[in-house]
């Protein structure tokens, strides 16, 4: 049993620990296998569509091992009842922990039909609360690849809402071996103090 919650919810979304027990690997492979959609989604992502179900199974192994080692907590994101596509896998999010740096890094990808609903911000609010209030970390960071304007807008919105800042451009940050290049990334951070102040000041709910 690790300090990461097995499952939790936000207003419109449910988060389940990504592990072999929680998801049928063939169902997960459906959303990871190569097609027009995943090619599109991964344009600005650090991963490529998974060619075979074995690759997807190995990804789940990696999720489980990293969680046991305290490196990250990966979750399946599913819309809750009442949402269009309720119960489906809308995407995957991870809270990556760098304990020595007291820092959590957020990651998310969503299937295209779930874009534009404000899910990214809602999910960020839930993970940030876990990072600060449950895991007692000091800093949350998030990156997006240079040129990924949709992620940029979503990130700017919630970083601003929680009182964080834009740190700058990280040049040659993300290796993309399959494409034979290394990409630049933009980094944003929110401190625990900024987060608590933003929550106190506005009494905002932690949703979108």
């Amino acid at each position, binding site marked *: 049993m690790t*300090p990461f919650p097995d499952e939790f919810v936000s207003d419109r979304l449910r988060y389940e620990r990504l592990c072999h027990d929680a998801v049928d690997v063939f169902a997960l492979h459906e959303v990871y296998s190569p097609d027009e959609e995943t090619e599109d989604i991964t344009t600005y992502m650090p991963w490529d569509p998974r060619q075979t179900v074995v690759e997807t199974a190995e990804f789940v192994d990696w999720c489980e091992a990293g969680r046991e080692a305290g490196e990250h907590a990966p979750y399946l994101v599913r819309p809750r009842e009442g949402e269009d596509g309720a119960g489906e896998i809308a995407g995957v999010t991870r809270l990556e922990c760098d304990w020595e740096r007291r820092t959590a890094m957020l990651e998310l990808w969503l299937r295209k039909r779930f874009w534009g609903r404000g899910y990214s911000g809602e999910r960020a609010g839930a993970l940030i609360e876990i990072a600060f209030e449950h*895991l007692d970390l000091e800093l949350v960071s998030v990156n997006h690849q240079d040129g990924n304007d949709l992620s940029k807008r979503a990130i700017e919105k919630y970083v601003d809402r929680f009182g964080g800042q834009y740190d700058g451009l990280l040049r040659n940050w993300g290796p993309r071996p399959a494409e034979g290049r290394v990409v630049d990334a933009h980094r944003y951070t929110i401190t625990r103090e900024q987060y608590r102040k933003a929550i106190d000041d506005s009494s905002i709910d932690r949703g979108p």
Partner: protein
Amino acid sequence: MSAEALLPRTLSTEQLALRRLDSDAVDVRALYDYRSAFADSDALDWVAESAFETVWEAHEFVLDAEDRWREREGVRYLLTTDPPLDEVTDAETVVGTVDLSCEWDRRTASVRVTIRDGERRSGFATEAAEHALSLAFDRFDLDAVTLDHAVGNDPARAFAEHLVEAFGGQ
């Protein structure tokens, strides 16, 4: 004999519940908070135990404790004032820990009691230590129990002396 049979999971004394520290025993965040509370008080000079740096460190501490009793090297109990709980979730209910380390080939165990600042004069330390002594002598049939305290740690020395005197040791 299995480690499970060798070392009981819960024990009760007059005022205290002892819960063997393993991953089912305590919410890691509660343990982390308990040790953080220690760091803010002078309880640190009782036995050297510092706050956990991270929640993950608290988690690893629990895994280590679990390995230790599985290997029959020793056991640590959380002390709470509640009845023996399935899982300790509130740091406020933890008043301390008692630790028994067994050196089977020397027929000896060492006992360490840590009581949270503010709970010292409640007789908790003595009760916890008596139970550890009973485990060592009555259950494990060992020949000797040792108590250490840091040089200059006067409250710990006074407690060790009190206990040794009460049980006719030296």
